[in-house]
């Protein structure tokens, strides 16, 4: 049975209450918006990308605790990382959240983001956790269309 404590762990509640890097970025050179059309969650991710390295990353928006904490954890994790590491992390986080058979393996490869592994037991909430990741992907790809979880 899915356990609520797996979903709402202290770290997640803390990132929800005090999200890291929660601000607009004036000198961003990449930016993307993400929507979850099912629930109206909305996030904007800002990047300063220099020579393939994420020098700075921030986000704004409104959403549930899971989407906010996931975005906050993501920005903390991606700061200073290269684009290719970011893509690799996206793949592993996605596998972990969707409970892909490689999910258990993937959660070993995502560092602090493993705290989100409980989400896969709540299928209705997977899109909340993945919204920020889809959005950062769009920002890295310089896709000007809003990212969507659909």
């Amino acid at each position: 049975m899915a356990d609520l404590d797996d979903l709402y762990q202290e770290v997640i509640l803390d990132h929800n209450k005090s999200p890291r890097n929660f601000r607009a970025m004036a000198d961003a050179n990449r930016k993307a918006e993400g929507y979850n059309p099912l629930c109206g969650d909305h996030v904007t991710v800002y990047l300063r990308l220099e020579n393939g390295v994420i020098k700075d990353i921030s986000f704004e928006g409104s959403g549930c605790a899971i989407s906010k904490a996931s975005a906050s954890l993501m920005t903390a994790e991606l700061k200073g990382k290269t684009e290719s590491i970011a893509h690799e992390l996206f793949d592993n986080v996605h596998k972990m959240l969707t409970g892909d058979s490689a999910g258990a393996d993937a959660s070993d490869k995502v560092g602090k983001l493993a705290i989100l592994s409980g989400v896969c037991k709540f299928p209705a909430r997977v899109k909340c956790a993945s919204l920020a990741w889809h959005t950062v992907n769009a920002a890295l790809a310089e896709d000007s269309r809003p990212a969507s979880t659909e």
Partner: protein
Amino acid sequence: MKANSFTADTLRPAAFFDVARIRADFPILSQQVHGKPLVYFDNGATSQKPRVVIETLERYYAAENANIHRGVHTLSERATAAYEAAREKIRGFVNARFDKEIIFVRGTTEAINLVAQSYGRSFLRSGDEIIVSAMEHHSNIVPWQMVCEQVGARLRVIPINHDGEIVMEEYARLLNDRTKLVAVTHISNALGTVAPVKEIIAAARARGVPVLLDGAQAVPHLQIDVQDLGCDFYAFSGHKMFGPTGIGVLYGRCELLEKMPPYQGGGDMISLVTFEKTHYNVLPYKFEAGTPHIAGVIGLGAAVDYLKGLDWEQIAAHEHQLLSYATEALREFPALKIIGTAKDKAGVLSFVFDHVHAHDVGTILDQEGVAVRAGHHCAMPVMQRFGVPATTRASFAFYNTVEEIDVLVKAIQRVLKVFG
């Protein structure tokens, strides 16, 4: 937190409503979710089905299945008779004058699209205006925006006040010579507001403007009389009134339906087809192209029979009790704000917390067995009006109980425990 300071008994209505007997008619309600008894408070999204509806569907497929209006064989005649008998039941249910005013569609959404595309595209011109209210479901906004784009008409919106009530003075101001259609909800799905539809219709009819009512949320709570209301179109869905999904109804005044062109072309909606010219069938078949949802129609007929067997005065009293009990109980939470506080309300309670998003509330309530809707309720303009991204909505049906509201209150206490 002390949730409520009174007991269920103090609010028990004088006429005894045997909710246990009603609940026994709904097999789904006796199950457990996450090890807790199911508390189904998502009736605004879809209602549960009484056993008689489920058995009617099964019997139809097991013993009566055939296409209608076609075969000369026994089963086809039987299916046709059952299908048309259901139309007559539904005519009686909304008190339409004629069977031919009852058009079967997939649901409220299709009914509104039918009127927008058939009536709207034929009779609206550039510069004409369509009036909707600020508390419409997307299905009573988008079809009109589409037809506005097609013909160059303009959508006007009656504002709602902070309680979620239509501002009638603004409506009077919006009505003018360019107004060619008024389309409003009977009961708001997001707020529970019962719109003053009789006044709205009277003001429009005084100017000769037809009115469509979105009755999706009204049919499970109110007894509908389209002649008494005086509306020109009334759209509703079977699945929200204890019938099957995938079937809905457009009531249309036959004078209007007669002059409207078909919405879709195909079988059953024609009387003669050649490659040069096609003659359309008469009402209601003109609007029922293709093989319809025969089982759905017959199942909806069974739902109507079921509803006719209930005491609606008792149901109204019971639902009123549920709403007032729940409203009082939720007001005990200082961090909780109820969205939608109209004087005339149906059994819908939308609420928000300052610090907890509706999704998180929904997930935690689900763990306690309580099914609610969390989100924008397909009414994003309503969310924008109240400045919230989403709400949690508990919506009641006559099979719900005050004891279930106590479970909701305990589950909300758990939400606040998790989020502090």
